[in-house]
């Protein structure tokens, strides 16, 4: 089977597997206790924290391990809004952020706060000037922006947004879930969120990084763990494995990005040539190296996924029929591109050119057969 759904979850990196197996025993004790095994566990956790900090460009005491990327975003958004309550209750976000950001915004609105959503153009990128204007409005407590979009791969203008936030004195939360371990973290953020299973670490580990000097208060009941930022017993073995994968990915990044990006370029070029009535969406150049998304007219996304699965390809779709909700992807909606017939290919580390070639060879027939079954002729 060819696994092309890395943007959902990246297969466990060998470095993470090895670290996890070792740390399952070495990091089993409670890192908050004082006996020898506990000290060893704490040492592992603090080393992982220091290494994560170094990889990100932060200080160790700014880094917390969470139980997921979603939890990191929820705590980052709500905690910063709470810490900045005296500055205002307004949150600014891009329209194509991950649902965890938008859901945290909705929770903020239910508590009486406001959320301004900055729209995106056809390629899914927020306009830096529009974003800067939104951030400059009096009473803005927090601005959020992703590094790259999880559905279409488009890179967001984080550096420009950070500059606008700095000028306005507003903290910027950057959701780096799709790029940590792949691309350098853009400078200028105040809060950073990430998710280990997106870079080849185990599931159940997220990163929340809060810069010194950023006002932050936990929106959850008090707990001593993770410097009072994240409640609950730390998963030391998983944190150790997550950071091992992060470091390994960063070492491999330049070479593997170039290779995967060339495969994505091939898909971007070949799909419209091989399949009639297809739109490849997202930024063609300013994009994450591993993600490409296209929509096929007159075809249900679910039908393509099912047929691709049958011939051994795991991909995902933002079409409503294949999602758990009845609504199509908010990302595709906000971009104003076709929401039906949508296919996202996201290449994991090691994805082979031969598998991409085979994908390109089976796709045209699959789309043609589905169209014929609903009475649509295509050349």
């Amino acid at each position: 089977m060819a696994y092309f759904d890395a943007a959902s979850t990246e297969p466990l990196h060998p470095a993470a597997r090895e670290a996890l197996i070792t740390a399952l025993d070495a990091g089993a004790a409670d890192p908050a206790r004082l006996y020898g095994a506990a000290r060893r566990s704490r040492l592992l956790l603090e080393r992982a924290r220091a290494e994560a900090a170094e990889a990100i460009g932060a200080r160790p005491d700014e880094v917390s391990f969470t139980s997921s990327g979603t939890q990191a975003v929820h705590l980052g958004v709500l905690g910063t809004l709470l810490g900045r309550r005296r500055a205002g209750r307004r949150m600014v976000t891009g329209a194509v952020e991950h649902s965890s950001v938008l859901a945290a915004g909705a929770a903020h609105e239910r508590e009486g706060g406001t959320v301004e959503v900055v729209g995106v153009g056809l390629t899914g990128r927020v306009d830096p000037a529009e974003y800067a204007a939104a951030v400059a409005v009096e009473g803005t407590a927090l601005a959020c922006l992703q590094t790259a979009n999880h559905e279409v791969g488009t890179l967001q203008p984080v550096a420009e947004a950070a500059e606008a936030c700095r000028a306005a004195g507003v903290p910027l939360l950057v959701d780096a879930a799709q790029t940590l371990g792949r691309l350098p973290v853009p400078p200028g953020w105040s809060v950073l969120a990430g998710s280990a299973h997106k870079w080849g670490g185990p599931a159940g580990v997220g990163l929340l990084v809060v810069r010194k000097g950023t006002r932050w208060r936990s929106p959850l009941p008090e707990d001593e763990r993770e410097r009072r930022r994240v409640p609950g017993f730390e998963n030391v073995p998983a944190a150790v494995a997550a950071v091992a994968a992060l470091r390994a990915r960063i070492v491999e990044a330049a070479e593997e990005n170039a290779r995967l990006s060339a495969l994505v370029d091939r898909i971007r070029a070949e799909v419209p040539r091989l399949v009639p009535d297809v739109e490849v969406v997202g930024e063609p150049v300013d994009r994450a190296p591993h993600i490409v998304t296209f929509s096929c007219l007159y075809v249900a996304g679910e039908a393509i996924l099912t047929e691709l699965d049958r011939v051994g390809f795991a991909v995902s779709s933002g079409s409503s029929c294949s999602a758990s909700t009845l609504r199509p992807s908010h990302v595709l909606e906000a971009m104003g591109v076709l929401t039906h017939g949508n296919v996202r290919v996201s290449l994991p580390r090691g994805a082979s050119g031969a598998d991409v070639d085979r994908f390109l060879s089976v796709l045209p027939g699959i789309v043609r057969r589905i169209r014929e079954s609903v009475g649509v002729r295509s050349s």
Partner: protein
Amino acid sequence: MAGMRRPEAGEAPPPAPALTIDALGRKCPIPIIMLAEQINSVPLNAVVSVLADDPAAFTDVPAWCRLKSHHHVGTHELPQGGWAIHVRRNY
């Protein structure tokens, strides 16, 4: 985003649809397939009104117009839910 568009004050009222396609209750891509099948049955520059209540149609009909170089005239909410999405045949 491909949003609602209502005529500005002073703007000429949109031409009455030459054809109404009732795709209410139909899931995308069916409304788009119906539109593609029937657009050539109206004269050039005539307007087709697609009635649809699948949320995907709200985005997908204007996106189809962009891809197929037809013109999305506007989208109007229906009292019973859903939209009348007006498309002008360009060629």
